[in-house]
């Protein structure tokens, strides 16, 4: 009893403390975001990570990933059920949830919000999410270059069907077994009717349906101050009573604010990778992974056509040394990030550092003609350093003549898109939903969204489609692993390393750090 009383007393004592720089009660936290301030809050029109991070506090998803098991669990959805082929998905909502304006949250809100986003002429950023849904093309007709896109006569996705107040179904263009996982994306959260009618009027006074709402007016240049919304009845609510997001275009400034004790959470900028453990000896943490990084071949350049040559390049790279140079990085031995269900640590057969074998493979491939151009991003502080490190390995181990070309990253991608890039470049990818499929489809499917190499293999496309049509998740993962094997055999891009994120947090919070969901300051426990 005494112990219990002591705990209660200390908890009360905590309430009066001002704790860090946060305002409000004891359970309040200030999260620093190293980016330009948000200009509006609308999850459907924001795919930037700062925007999504804020939206996650104000909008609840249909489903989410359990941080302990990695399994998908329902939040606002009561059930998400695929048909036998995984082509039509029925989504049933839990009853009794509302928007922050008091209106009940219905299936119609989802269907109408999704239609609004899917209409290409609205130019909303999460439009692409719906490209898998039947009827997307009618809302996004091809516009000839330079022409004015006209609003389409069709305003609704033919694949979306309202069944009753709380149920709707989504018919996809082709079967897709991972669709249920994609529903955890905050970028598809619904907007209430009054916002849908005039989204611009609500840019700075969003109406959410999640655990937090704006604490007051939010003007340009202000921090985003959120308080707990009493009306939220769903699961998965964070512990904090109040959350403030502060924006810092300069990551080093955010770091200094943390050291001064005015923010509770900050991500470590690249300049502090060497010093953050001594700067905050009791308050640092690292995530398992934040995506994977690659070295990309241009498939359109015939000099890189030989598979043996690509394997030779891969085996001439000392990944351990390279990962050390990057810092907080793990050498890759496969194409997917290590925090994925279905990741295999030994997936790659051509990723061990073996100079003799690399030389032999290059010889068998008939050598490499001309200088090897390595393109790097000039606006990244490390671009040139990484390029030269890899270039030196290839030069020393394979005797290649290496040249370095620095350009803006948008310029490099433009060259690659028009198939004019005559050399190798770096790329990285992080998943939008936790499935190894979200690495394989974007990067290796013909015309995939992030097919950096311009790679195409009909056999791989066919295998991917098989995985997509497999309703059993375990089986699907096995098929996707075969896809990964195939991609490694062809090796349109060389796996390099997966980077870890590093973060600092104040003594009063313990941010969630899960292998499956990464580091989430919003889900901090309070001491």
């Amino acid at each position, binding site marked *: 009893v005494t112990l219990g009383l002591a705990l209660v007393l200390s908890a009360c004592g905590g309430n009066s403390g001002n704790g860090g720089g946060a305002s409000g009660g004891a359970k309040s936290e200030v999260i620093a975001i190293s980016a330009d301030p948000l200009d509006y809050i609308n999850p459907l029109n924001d795919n930037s990570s700062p925007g999504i991070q804020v939206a996650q506090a104000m909008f609840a998803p249909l489903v989410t990933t359990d941080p302990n098991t990695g399994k998908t669990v329902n939040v606002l959805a009561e059930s998400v059920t695929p048909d036998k082929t995984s082509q039509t998905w029925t989504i049933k909502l839990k009853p009794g949830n509302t928007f922050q304006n008091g209106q009940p949250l219905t299936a119609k809100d989802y269907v109408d919000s999704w239609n609004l986003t899917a209409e290409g002429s609205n130019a909303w950023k999460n439009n692409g999410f719906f490209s898998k849904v039947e009827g997307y093309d009618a809302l*996004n007709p091809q516009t000839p270059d330079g022409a004015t896109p006209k609003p389409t006569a069709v305003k609704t996705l033919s694949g979306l069907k309202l069944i009753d107040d709380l149920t709707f179904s989504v018919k996809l263009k082709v079967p897709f077994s991972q669709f249920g996982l994609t529903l955890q994306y905050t970028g598809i959260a619904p907007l209430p009717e009054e916002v849908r009618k005039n989204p611009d009027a609500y840019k700075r006074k969003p109406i959410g349906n999640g655990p937090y709402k704006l604490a007051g007016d939010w003007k340009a240049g202000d921090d985003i101050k959120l308080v707990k919304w009493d009306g939220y009845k769903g699961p998965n609510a964070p512990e904090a009573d109040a959350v403030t997001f502060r924006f810092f*275009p300069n990551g080093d400034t955010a770091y200094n604010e943390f050291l001064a004790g005015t923010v509770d959470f900050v991500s470590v900028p690249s300049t502090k990778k060497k010093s953050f453990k001594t700067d905050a000896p009791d308050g640092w943490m690292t995530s398992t992974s934040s995506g994977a990084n690659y070295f990309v071949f241009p498939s359109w350049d015939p000099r890189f056509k030989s598979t043996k040559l690509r394997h030779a390049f891969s085996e001439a790279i000392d990944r351990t040394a390279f990962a050390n140079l990057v810092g907080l990085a793990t050498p890759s031995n496969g194409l997917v990030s290590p925090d994925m269900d279905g990741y295999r640590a030994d997936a790659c057969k051509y990723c061990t550092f073996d100079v003799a074998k690399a030389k032999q493979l290059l010889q068998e491939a008939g050598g490499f003609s001309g200088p090897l151009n390595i393109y790097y991003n000039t606006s990244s502080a490390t671009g040139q350093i990484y390029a030269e490190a890899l270039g030196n390995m290839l030069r020393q181990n394979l005797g290649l003549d290496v040249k370095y070309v620095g*350009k803006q990253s948008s310029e490099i991608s*433009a060259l690659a898109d028009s198939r004019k890039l005559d050399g190798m470049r770096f790329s990285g990818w992080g998943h939008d939903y936790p499935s190894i499929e979200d690495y394989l489809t974007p990067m290796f499917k013909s015309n995939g969204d992030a097919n950096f190499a311009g790679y195409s293999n009909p056999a791989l496309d066919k295998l991917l489609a098989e995985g997509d049509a497999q309703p059993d998740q375990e089986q699907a993962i096995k098929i996707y692993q075969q896809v990964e094997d195939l991609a490694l055999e062809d090796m349109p891009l060389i796996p390099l390393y997966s980077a870890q994120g590093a973060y600092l947090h104040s003594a009063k919070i313990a941010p969630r750090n899960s292998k499956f969901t990464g580091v989430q300051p919003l889900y901090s426990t309070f001491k």
Partner: protein
Amino acid sequence: VTRFVLRRILAAIPIGLIVTLGVFALVFAMPGDPLRELAGDKPIPPSVLAAKRDQFHLNAPFLIQYLLSMKDIFTGHFGTTFSGADIADQLRLRIPVTLKLATTGLFFQWIAGLLFGLYAGFRRNGIIDRMLLLATLVVLAIPGLVLYFAGQYVFGVDLKWLPVSGIADGWPMSYLLPAVCIGITGFAGLARLTRTSIVDAAGADFVKTARAKGLGEQRILWRHVLPNALLPVVTLMGIDFAGIFGGAVLAESIFNLPGLGQFMFQAIKLKEGGVVVLLSTLAFLMFILINLVVDIIYGAIDPRVRNG
């Protein structure tokens, strides 16, 4: 004076057009697709790209894009940036921030520059003069980046005398540290110019004449040396003031002050020709205005350059 002002304003119009057109051309010529820059790593569907290109007139020819931007500026329809920020809102937020930062920064810069310059000029080749020369050299050699972060660390993080960054504490607290930093990095030029000017003026014939007439040293100094020495100094101060209105990009970034400099930086990064032209026009107007003021002050100091 009115005619002089009118003439100057009329002359400024063609210059303004040339300057803004030149700036717009430079942004236009920058490599890379602005919307792609905005998208980051994630792909944007073609239909969304087409709608955005249309919204911001990115398909129009260069000259049409420029004229549309100018039209928006003069009709006050600023619209939004590529990333969706309301430009009028941004100006309302940022112009006061930049003005506060600029005036506070220049206050320190001018006080330090003039005091050191005057003192060193009058007592040239003394120990203090030599030390000041050395100090200005050191300041000129320190990169702003190093000084700003050092200042932030010492006074914000370590001593906690002043806020680390941001404008939450308002004027003057939020602006003191960046303003002093701007003052330190900027005063050296002014100090050296003031010193040299005074040395030059003090050696001029009219000073010898004044001395020969038997005037007191104080009178010579204040009535004869100073007015003549101050002409180039006033010019430099005017240029400083006009220039700083373009935004102190580095100070704003490190001290997280949402001023015009950061806005300009973002706009250039995203190749937003319209915003860049808008901000250049603002800076240009400020430049013209301040030049006028400088010319009028000139007239007051020195009758020789007084304009009819």
